[in-house]
């Protein structure tokens, strides 16, 4: 699979990741990694944040839609 964004620019580069939202192939340059905290537990105990966060791979468009205001 090749990077969609590079293809739009007329370039060809191999995809190293896939956007978890839209499934777009992404090269390293167009990959955005957003670490997401994971919480476990709950009533009747306080939730605990797990030490290791979950990596979340997004393309620039999905990142903008989800996180940029």
């Amino acid at each position, binding site marked *: 699979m090749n990077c969609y964004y590079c293809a739009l620019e007329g370039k060809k580069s191999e995809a190293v990741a896939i956007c978890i939202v839209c499934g777009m192939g992404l090269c390293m340059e167009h990959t955005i990694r957003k670490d997401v905290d994971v919480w476990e537990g709950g*009533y*009747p*105990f306080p*939730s605990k944040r797990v030490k290791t966060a979950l990596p979340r791979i997004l393309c620039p468009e999905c990142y903008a839609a989800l996180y940029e205001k």
Partner: protein
Amino acid sequence: MTVSLGKRSLAEAVGTFILVFFGAGAAVVTLMLASGTATSTPFNIGIGALGGLGDWLAIGLAFGIAIAGAIYALGRISGCHINPAVTIALFATGRFPGRDVVPYIVAQLIGAAAASLLFAWVVGPDAVTIGGLGATAPFAGIGYLQAIVIEAIGTFLLMFVIMGAAVDERAPPGLAGFAVGLAVAGIITTIGNLTGASLNPARTFGPYLGDWLLAGQNLWDLFPIYIIGPIIGAVVAAFLYDYLSCDCE
């Protein structure tokens, strides 16, 4: 990593405030509505004068819905015990750290006291003189020891539901708030007219303190009923649930 103990304690105070303001407040409003209505027996103090057992169901639902709301709002922050008996039972079964027990209980008592005092202020003197701020006491014909046993049995069911619907990892997620709220409503409907159905030392502490400060009414000699009964009931329920649900012989 959890949020700080200070924030969790504040969440417990807020949750207990909600419980006492809306739950005990419903009892006060019922008594104010029934004020002046003739009752046929000393067993009927006014709650029940208008709708029979339906009065208690309404009060029970006020408690239950407020508790469910508090659980969904605060359950992930502090655990939303909002009841010293629940905190002690979770500690006794090794599920809650000992260093957090006292701060949690102090916060619950502060939240309950704040709720009763604020309720008295916003409603006015009738909340104290007619409604007694929703203070619990054994009804006519119910002795001291009997009241302790009734409170223990009521809190047993409450803690049993918490264990089965929330503590047990096999419990379906997301339903605990409704389950606990409905259990409280059912318990109050049945034993409300026997002991007041406190099930919770903090819930009784708030109105007792308010009545004592604002009207000079001293009910503190009854307070052990609402400490001993709920704590015994909750601890027995937690241990019994562990025994019943363990697949070990």
